[in-house]
């Protein structure tokens, strides 16, 4: 099944990340995410790997707390990983969480607390007063599921559809979840092989790195191609077994340096001008995820 690609723009007067109307930004994003979750949870491969939206826009109890908490199941849903993406405390920054523990309560503005992993704080973000463009790409095919979200705010040029998040089924049949701000990222993947079992949370430039599986430098086992030097810098990654996105339309690479704009499209230099490859999420020292739209 070809991926579904949707895009929406809010002008500076209408964009409201904190808004609760169906047409507002976060509710619009959630409506698409909810539909995707319902679809993929019905897939045979996800009987023991259910995706759950633990929190959404409607759970906010405090001003400036607006976001998502998403869990992914593994090991017949007894082991869950958690991804947090949203403004948790201020209107002009967002936080990214990836962890394997979740305090399911009303703290943190109604969103509970993700722990046992990594946190990226004070990520530049606009909740209102700026033009915002949201791009989502997803597939519900059993065994090849993914959901990508990338926002773009021209007033904040580092967004560029890249400061988003993804939920992705990998070649080992387990879920990966990732969120980034263009240079810093948080990431979690459930491993179940000879090296380790459990959710491994890794990140770059994080304020916390408490996963027992995480590497010395904050890089745990990584299911995407790491940048050159990572292996040398972090002995913990040696011996890893890489897995990749299960969906054949997704490309993953290690760094974001070789794509650029031409003709208003993001084009990978290595694929040649005019190739239809779109950058969705990326990080300077982390993974990039691209959608392959070539014929």
């Amino acid at each position, binding site marked *: 099944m070809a991926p579904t690609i949707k895009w929406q723009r809010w002008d500076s007067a209408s964009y409201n990340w904190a808004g609760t109307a169906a047409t507002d930004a976060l509710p619009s994003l959630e409506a698409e995410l909810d539909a995707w979750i319902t679809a993929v949870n019905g897939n045979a491969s996800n009987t023991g790997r259910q995706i759950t939206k633990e929190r959404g826009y409607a759970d906010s109890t405090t001003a400036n707390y607006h976001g998502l908490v998403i869990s992914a199941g593994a090991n017949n849903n007894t082991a869950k990983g958690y991804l947090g993406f949203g403004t948790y405390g201020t209107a002009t920054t967002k936080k990214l969480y990836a962890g394997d523990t979740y305090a399911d309560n009303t703290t943190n503005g109604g969103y509970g607390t993700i722990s046992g992993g990594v946190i990226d704080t004070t990520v530049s973000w606009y909740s209102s007063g700026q033009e915002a463009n949201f791009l989502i790409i997803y597939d519900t095919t059993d065994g090849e599921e993914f959901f990508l979200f990338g926002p773009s705010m021209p007033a904040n040029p580092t967004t560029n559809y890249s400061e988003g998040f993804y939920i992705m089924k990998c070649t080992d049949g387990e879920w990966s979840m990732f969120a980034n701000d263009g240079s810093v990222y948080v990431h979690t993947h459930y491993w179940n092989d000879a090296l380790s079992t459990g959710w491994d949370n890794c990140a770059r430039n994080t304020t916390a790195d408490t996963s027992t599986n995480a590497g010395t430098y904050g890089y745990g086992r990584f299911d995407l191609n790491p940048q050159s030097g990572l292996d040398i810098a972090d002995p913990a990654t040696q011996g890893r077994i890489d897995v990749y996105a299960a969906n054949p339309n997704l490309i993953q690479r290690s760094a974001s340096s070789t794509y650029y*704009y031409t003709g208003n499209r993001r084009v990978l230099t290595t694929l040649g001008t005019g190739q239809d490859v779109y950058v969705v999420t990326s990080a300077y020292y982390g993974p990039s995820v691209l959608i392959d739209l070539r014929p």
Partner: protein
Amino acid sequence: MAWTDYSNTASNLWDANIGNAVNSSTNIHSEVQEFLAVGASNLTVYPYVTTINSLENSYNIPGFDGYWPDGTSDPINGDMGGGGGGGVRPSSGFLYPRGDT
């Protein structure tokens, strides 16, 4: 406001909407510059991109020592620049033989 579905639209037709949503004069180019500023010596260090999506179709290069053999072009982009023995070592981890990091 509503979502616009581009699922069946060729991406080269995105220019009037998605493509123009961000200004081509900034953004990616600036990202590249920032990337360079934080330590990447040149862009050719990281030219390797692949459509590897499973272990089955990954590149398997027996005895690969981290450099393309003399006269061997990059199987991904056909570029000879990274080959020639002693050329730039590919950056992507998957190109390394497992266990040889």
